[in-house]
């Protein structure tokens, strides 16, 4: 099993390997944002920020913040040379219209059909969906980056119980235990983390897992 301190790093690093040169990618708030730190230098990924630009760069040096330049979480960021700003209608036309190659989001629950729940817990937490519903419907690939369980309870379920963000849109799930692809036949475990057994992954997953005959060890 992966050390607790390395869980987020392992997930972010593995997700970063999913991108091709020239891909347009939207990273969600939290763990997905960390993926940007691990993208291969030879792969040019254009990050889209749904508040209205492409060419999202790292945080500015202290003292060099621009009050007019923030990401979708209101954090100060930079814009890379060649970036472009636009309004929210254009931003979501880019998202909904299939001009984003991949979106990376966290999840509360994902299920065997690729259904995703990540925007509310009735009676407890109702932050709103923000741009998540549009991103999940519009992006060509939906990658979920999350810890495999929440306080020991599985998050990869037979069927989501929380209100859905979108139905049947998830393509890939990356956790600290492995990489799972959503297929027509169900969830396929394609990669497994080092020092982790298939039995351990199955025990931490409520959904049925099809073990790929070409199961590989996840590069961490």
């Amino acid at each position, binding site marked *: 099993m992966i050390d607790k301190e390395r869980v987020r790093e392992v997930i972010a690093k593995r997700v970063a390997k999913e991108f091709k040169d020239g891909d347009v990618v939207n990273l969600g708030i939290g763990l997905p944002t960390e993926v940007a730190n691990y993208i291969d230098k030879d792969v040019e990924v254009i990050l889209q*920020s*749904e*508040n*209205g*630009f492409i060419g999202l760069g790292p945080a500015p040096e202290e003292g060099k913040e*621009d*009050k*007019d*330049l*923030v990401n*979708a*979480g*209101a954090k100060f960021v930079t*814009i890379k040379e060649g970036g472009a*700003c*636009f*309004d*929210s*209608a254009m*931003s*979501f036309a880019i*998202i*909904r219209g299939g001009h984003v190659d991949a979106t990376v989001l966290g999840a509360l629950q994902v299920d065997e059909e690729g*259904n995703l729940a990540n925007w509310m817990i009735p009676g407890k937490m*109702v*932050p*709103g*969906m*923000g*741009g*998540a*519903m*549009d991103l999940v*419907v*519009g992006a060509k690939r939906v990658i979920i980056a999350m810890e495999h369980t929440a306080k020991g309870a599985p998050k990869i379920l037979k069927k989501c119980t929380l*209100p*859905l*963000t*979108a*139905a*049947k849109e998830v393509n890939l799930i990356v956790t600290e235990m492995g990489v799972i692809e959503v297929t027509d036949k169900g969830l396929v475990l394609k990669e497994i983390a080092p020092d982790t057994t298939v039995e351990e992954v199955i025990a931490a997953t409520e959904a049925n897992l099809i073990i790929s005959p070409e199961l590989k060890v996840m590069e961490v």
Partner: protein
Amino acid sequence: MNKIKKIEEIMEFIKDGQTIMFGGFLGVGTAENIVDAIVKKGVKDLTIICNDTAFVDKGVGKLVANKQVKKAIVSHIGTNPETGRQMNSGEMEVELVPQGTLVERIRAYGAGLGGVLTPTGIGTVVEQGKTVLEIDGKKFILEKPLKADIAILKGSRVDKKGNIWYSKTTRNFNPIMAMAADIVIVEAEKLVEVGEIEPENVVTPHILVDYIVEGGER
């Protein structure tokens, strides 16, 4: 035609029970001076349309904190705990709309359309109570237009006729809302002479703007 007004003059247009659109994304690109003046005036029972309810001390969040909002039509409330509290206690109604749908509903009104068909929300609670149409084998939700009595914009540079240019990520909902309200007011961070913004760099054309307030940088 002189569109330039003092903020006190603008406040004569703001009344109890109105529907007001505010540009801004988590407060970035929101007319803070006009929000402060509305807080000071204390009008009640507003319906606000904005991307989010920002923070208790920034953007439209200040109107929520001052209990001036009856209903908020927004995509996100997570950064303003006061919105959640008032929603749970029943003091305030919140209509959560996916962000891309929210902006298209506003754009639809401003563009004279009867609504938009979007795949966003199919198979979720967003679909409930709405017309779903199948077009060429794919399902879409019919989302209706949104309009307001007043739209309050923030422009980084505004010329004296009302042409607007927006800096970086301050643009967001501002240019879309400029088309969807009876009265459109812009707070200018910097008021410039006509001609200082090149015609091809104008984002919101002056014919959409009714009044200009000088705000300064903040």
